[in-house]
């Protein structure tokens, strides 16, 4: 059958046609104006009250988009950790003895109060972290509330987690969370712990502690019994003290593989239960039969979401050779219309990097990529004069031995490699010390099933990327950690299963 009918006009252009992404019709600034209601100084939240740190010292939290000071935070130390752990241990007997449905009520209340103040929290998160308001408004805050809702729903159904057995809480749980999703990581940690009747001491990242302490206000408003959740802000060493504290029965850590290993060493020989959610270097694999425009959108969501500061970011793009050139050119066209800049502007797609230190790390990797022979490309964009900004960056001509293909960069940097066969794609994808996530783009269902079996990754997304749901367990293989968060699997990591009829 004839599909292509010959046409009159000559169809070969004299020069390569190009698209023009200029400023013929530019968007005016559209700043979010809600009041984040920040306090000038945040104390520690211990035993249901805001208390000054034992050492009496405070440190500054800055807005990475403007480098302006946002608030002073209490510098908690080992003494404060000890005080918080005692408060948690004191609260544990009564809290764990509550019927599940009563604990569920508190979780529902927290979720609803957060929804009530969603805009305020979204603005606070954006100011503190630098991520665009579009993401905090549409993703961070709603997903955080969703985790509390989801686990509230589990609280009165715990006898159905495993047939013939019941779930017992572990006691005091020590948790350390990173700066990339301050509120969301906190909800991943706190909600399942409370659902099962554990009490919590949590240390937020020093860069981004404000929303955790704002959420402590919500714990107060929700009437959560004193000591059930305690928030201790401070440097990394304070987190170390928390992990090693003898009262802590379980530790949950999300952060770099490097720090995870230090923590594991420090608690070796103890009977603490552990879950670790560490780094990643995910492969996002695009086959030649994939819907390419949607794959490009998935690549963008995979690596430029949250400025690429995502442990499961699709930082390695593996493209099938027949479509490699097309995918790269489509990707470049897409990146030309990504808007980098003021995170408070509702039209910003890529905001600020969390800190100068992280920006320097990313710049170091850009240099390494160029030095090692890969080709770097960035779309033309005007960056704000102040603040820590980095344009979206892609590297082509990358090989498995390059540092930018092996190490977790934690920034908006994509390394592009090619492959010829399915086996080669699997081999390259698995050729990493990490195993947190992967993406597969193809029209062929059977290939998706095979890839999801053979890819050594905790999450495999098919024809989508970076999708999160409280009901779906999340966690890694190999040096990306162990234990799962979310879903029924996540619950199992916060309790022990006891046979019915036994104490």
């Amino acid at each position: 059958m004839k599909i292509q009918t010959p046409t009159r006009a000559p169809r070969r252009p004299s020069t390569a046609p190009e698209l023009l992404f200029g400023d013929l019709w530019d968007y005016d600034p559209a700043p979010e104006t809600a009041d984040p209601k920040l306090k000038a100084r945040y104390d520690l939240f211990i035993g249901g009250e805001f208390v000054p740190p034992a050492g009496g010292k405070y440190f500054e939290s800055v807005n990475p988009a403007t480098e302006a000071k946002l608030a002073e935070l209490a510098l908690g130390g080992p003494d404060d950790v000890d005080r918080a752990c005692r408060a948690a241990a004191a609260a544990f007997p009564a809290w764990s003895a509550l019927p599940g449905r009563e604990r569920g009520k508190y979780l529902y209340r927290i979720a609803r109060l957060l929804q009530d103040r969603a805009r305020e929290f979204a603005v606070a998160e954006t100011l503190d972290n630098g991520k665009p308001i579009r993401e905090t408004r549409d993703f961070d805050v709603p997903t955080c509330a969703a985790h509390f809702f989801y686990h509230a729903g589990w609280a009165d159904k715990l006898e159905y987690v495993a047939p013939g057995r019941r779930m017992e809480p572990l006691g005091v749980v020590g948790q350390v969370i990173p700066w990339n999703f301050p509120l969301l990581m906190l909800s991943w940690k706190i909600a399942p712990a409370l659902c099962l009747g554990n009490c919590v001491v949590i240390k937020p990242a020093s860069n981004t502690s404000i929303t955790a302490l704002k959420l402590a206000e919500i714990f107060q408003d929700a009437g959560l019994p004193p000591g059930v959740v305690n928030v201790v802000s401070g440097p990394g060493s304070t987190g170390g003290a928390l992990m090693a504290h003898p009262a802590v029965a379980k530790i949950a850590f999300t952060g770099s593989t490097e720090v995870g290993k230090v923590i594991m060493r420090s608690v070796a020989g103890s009977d603490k239960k552990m879950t670790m959610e560490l780094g990643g270097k995910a492969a996002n694999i695009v086959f030649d039969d994939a819907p390419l425009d949607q794959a490009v959108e998935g690549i963008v969501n995979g690596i430029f979401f949250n400025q690429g500061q995502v442990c499961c970011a699709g930082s390695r793009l593996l493209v099938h050779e027949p479509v490699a050139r097309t995918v790269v050119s489509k990707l470049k066209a897409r990146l030309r219309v990504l808007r980098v800049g003021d995170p408070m502007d509702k039209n910003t797609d890529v905001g600020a990097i969390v800190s100068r230190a992280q920006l320097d790390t990313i710049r170091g990797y850009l240099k390494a990529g160029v030095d090692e022979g890969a080709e770097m490309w960035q779309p033309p964009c005007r960056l704000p004069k102040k603040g820590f900004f980095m344009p979206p960056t892609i590297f082509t001509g990358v090989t498995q031995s390059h540092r930018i293909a092996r190490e977790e960069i934690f920034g908006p940097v994509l390394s592009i490699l090619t492959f010829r066969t399915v086996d080669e794609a699997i081999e390259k994808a698995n050729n990493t010390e990490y195993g947190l996530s992967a993406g597969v783009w193809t029209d062929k269902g059977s290939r998706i099933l095979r890839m999801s079996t053979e890819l050594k990754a905790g999450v495999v997304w098919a024809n989508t990327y970076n999708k999160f749901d409280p009901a779906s367990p999340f966690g890694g293989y190999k040096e990306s950690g162990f234990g799962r968060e979310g879903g029924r699997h996540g619950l199992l990591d916060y309790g022990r299963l006891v046979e019915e009829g036994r104490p």
Partner: protein
Amino acid sequence: MPAGTPQKALSRLLGEIGSVDAVGVEERVAKYAARSIKTASKVQGLKLAVSMVDLTTLEGKDTEEKVASLCRKALRPSDDPEVPQVAAVCIYPSMVRYARKHLGRSPVRVASVATAFPSGQTPFRTRLAEVKAALADGADEIDMVINRGAFLAGEFGRAQDEIAAVAEACGRATLKVILEVSELETYDAIRAASFLAMRVVRPGDFIKTSTGKTSLNATLGNNQVMIEAIRDFYLSTGVAVGMKPAGGIRSAKQALQFLVAVKETLGDAWLTNRRYRFGASSLLNDLIRQLQKQKTGAYQAPYYFSENSDSY
């Protein structure tokens, strides 16, 4: 030549031009709806949208006076002189002579639906004769419907040959090819039909979503699939085809979202009524209402602007 099964014809063509994932398309267009268009850029966008409107009346009860009134509205959409004229009036072939008379030599163009709009279910020679008659009466633009029956039966060659013949008949007139997306149903089929049409039309011709006579018309999703097809075709051949979403775009807010899609997918070169149109009737009054709001800071009472396109 054996036509093969419809599915084979479609998958063969998709193998060549690439397929579409519906979930991914919806996700992409949701980001357009989240764009916040304020102050000066809003005014500019609204005026741009006015200049892209194909002001339409397609009713059995159309009369010369109705068309005359529509033409006057097209020439002077508002008492505010800053509001531009619309791109065209869009009418049935029997009304072309009246529209020509009332629009005269003004830049507002006369567009006529033809080819047994909206179903296209008459013999091809009848449809072609209708095109010629509309042109003879003074139409500047022809909005044809594709043969969806042939397309769905897998007879792509036939569907495409008909488009080619109409394009040939159009001469210096602009052709807009209506895919009637609601009858094609899938994004894959919409992309395939877009390519079938683009391969035989001339530079400056358009592809168009729908007739406005079925349940589902222009959406951001099918607009996206079609403008991505236009972009891919342009990048591979250098031939720039225009786009016209039609039906279902009633509010200024919607129109701005479509323009955001154009800006971020096709770029600046398509932000003109030579390459992008809105097939709409009630949209125009909402655009003017929003322009007034930007100017005065207040919404006018509802009776200042008619919601009903019948009363233009």
